């Protein structure tokens, strides 16, 4: 797992630290009875300082990573902006602002658990401990990359931590079912986390996956990141209901919506859902109201957006930082050290990528098919 994910944020603690906060709501499933996992989650107890620090550090690491990618991405796109140019060419979807979701969810996972992410995968990759050097090398299109330069930023596969992602909206959900299916058959308690945006929740694959996972009680946690936008289309222009959590009732599974991009509320809800999945009780759906701090992709002028004026005030990292400072969990030294550790790790990864080889065009046709081995 990634170095900045302190062990204290891992699953072992979730069973005792989950609480119900006022920012979480769980809609009552209208159909088959669903066990109330809150009962087993020791409601009322706060997160430990270590857990909070862990969440904070993960968010900082993710942001630090994306700031570096942002810098490298724009470093050599000119003159003007040519998307195909530079050390990092192509579309670039950054997740700044959405770190609370990944940090809160992945804190409950181990390297045995799977995550299928979206076209905006970095925060989940970082939080789930994808090898940062190899990931960065992939984003730079190098032979040392996760996909030897074949995949790119939307196609990061790290089998060591069962991480994958897809550029096709909502189509990362179905493979997560299969990973969960394999884990279940193998008798492990590993689970799969499937991530999608609120825009993706209107795709057919979303519906089919929830039904099938619920029907077969697969150990999956479905995450919907509601950043209010699907590129330029506002949530209200894409979705007939104001909370995707209500859709969970259509599958007889728990559905929960976390408001206000609250990392601790995410952590607690995810704890319940992960526990339920590991216990063989089936999937859950968690929607998190989060924030797309930057454009849909780099180069997006966001002319359609009217909520940008006060947006920095909503940045979840300074907000969580203040909260932890007020709670006495964080001080200047801790903040600095989190940042420094993050910067070190990130810049090492960037350097690693830059120092790596560019693929040889002669190898174009390699890796299409696996060699026969059996």
């Amino acid at each position, binding site marked *: 797992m990634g170095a900045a994910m302190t062990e204290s944020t891992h699953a072992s603690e979730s069973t005792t630290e989950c609480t119900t906060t006022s920012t979480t709501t769980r809609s009552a499933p209208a159909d088959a009875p669903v066990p109330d996992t809150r009962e087993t989650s020791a409601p009322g107890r706060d997160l430990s300082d270590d857990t909070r620090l862990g969440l904070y550090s993960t968010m900082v690491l993710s942001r630090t990573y994306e700031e570096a990618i942002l810098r490298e991405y724009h470093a050599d796109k000119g003159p003007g902006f040519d998307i195909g140019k530079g050390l990092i060419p192509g579309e670039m979807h950054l997740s700044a602002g959405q770190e609370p979701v990944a940090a809160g969810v992945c804190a409950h996972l181990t390297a045995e658990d799977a995550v*299928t992410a979206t076209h905006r995968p970095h925060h989940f990759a970082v939080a789930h401990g994808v090898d940062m050097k190899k990931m960065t090398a992939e984003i730079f299109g190098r032979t040392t990359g996760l996909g030897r330069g*074949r995949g790119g930023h939307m196609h990061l596969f790290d089998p060591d931590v069962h991480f994958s992602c897809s550029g096709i909206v909502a*189509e990362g959900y179905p493979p997560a079912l299969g990973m969960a*299916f394999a884990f279940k058959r193998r008798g492990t308690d590993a689970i799969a986390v499937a991530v999608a945006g609120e825009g993706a929740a209107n795709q057919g694959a979303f519906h089919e996956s929830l039904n*099938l996972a619920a029907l077969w009680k697969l150990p999956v946690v479905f995450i919907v990141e509601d950043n209010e936008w699907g590129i330029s289309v506002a949530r209200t222009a894409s979705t007939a209901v104001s909370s995707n959590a209500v859709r969970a009732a259509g599958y007889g599974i728990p559905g929960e919506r976390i408001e206000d991009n609250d990392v601790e509320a995410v952590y607690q809800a995810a704890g319940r859902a992960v526990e339920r999945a590991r216990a063989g009780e089936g999937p859950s759906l968690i929607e998190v109201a989060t924030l797309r701090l930057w454009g849909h992709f780099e180069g997006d002028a966001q002319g359609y957006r009217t909520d940008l004026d006060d947006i920095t005030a909503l940045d979840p990292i300074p907000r969580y930082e203040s909260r932890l400072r007020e709670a006495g969990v964080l001080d200047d030294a801790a903040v600095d050290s989190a940042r420094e550790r993050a910067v070190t790790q990130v810049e090492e990864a960037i350097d690693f990528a830059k120092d790596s080889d560019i693929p040889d065009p002669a190898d174009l046709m390699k890796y299409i098919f696996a060699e026969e081995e059996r």
Partner: protein
Amino acid sequence: MTSTDTTQATQQARRRLNTSKAMVEAITQEMERDDSIVYLGEDVGEYGGIFSSTTGLLERFGKDRIIDTPISETAFIGLGIGAATEGMRPIVELMFADFLGVCLDQIYNHMAKIHYFSGGNVKVPMVLTTAVGGGYSDGGQHSQTLWGTFAHLPGMKVVVPSNPADAKGLMTSAIRDDNPVVYMFHKGIMGLPWMAKNKRSIDIVPEGEHLVPIGKARVAREGSDATIVTLSLSVHHSLDVAEALAGEGIDVEVIDLRSLVPLDREAILDSVRKTGRLIVVDEDYLSFGVSGEVVATVTDVDPGLLKAPVKRVTMPDVPIPYAHDLEYAALPTRDRIEAAVREVVS
């Protein structure tokens, strides 16, 4: 159990199966040796597969391994992909190839590409089985072959058996392949009791382990005057025509492609080098498909090999009509094949 076993070799000469039973036998034998294999799809359990692709498997392997799914092709094919990346070897059935439109993204953007995107680090050892073909008035959404569509999209192998022994051997190879393999079986080769059968749909099938290598075409009939390159059910129509014309001294070679990806280009070239005359018989649509690719295989190397215009006997570019006479006007029938051969050799 291997096919080199002597007792079995003797039995093999006698034992005849229809194609669906041969397919099921391969699946059974592989499921017995590898418990990471499961079979998922619609009506594959108690029903035994709409086209008998799984008859008896539920009774043998139980509900944990032979699994009926909801009508959610994107979800369950995606599930197969995810399971394959985690070390299982799922076989997933898409009931009719015509339904690819509701799940093609999982197939071509995920199943077929994950291995490459991962730089070879993630394998997707999955078999996608699917029924193809018409000829029984099932209308334009249930009669297509569409193998050209699958074969055009890189990253998945595509196999197309024509007879019982190959159905078994290609299935065994597909299951053991570490890559995604699309296994397309024509309803007309299965030997179903409720559909017109071609006479070779029941034939000798090796009993033990039987593998047919993926990517090798088969010379179904040797001949020197003209080459028919074809696949699946059309192999039989072509053989029928070849046999009929043999009496007139027209000696037709019939190549059964068996696999579209990889395509055995050498087999095509070898035959055309010999005969100089080419007919492609393909139940898929004429344009932008298999028939053009077979032709280009020759012209890539030497158009001079072709001593006459190539005849393409295919489904024309028309949605497949329902009425029997219209459908049979569209299908690559024996009559159309025969006329094409006569024209090419004239």
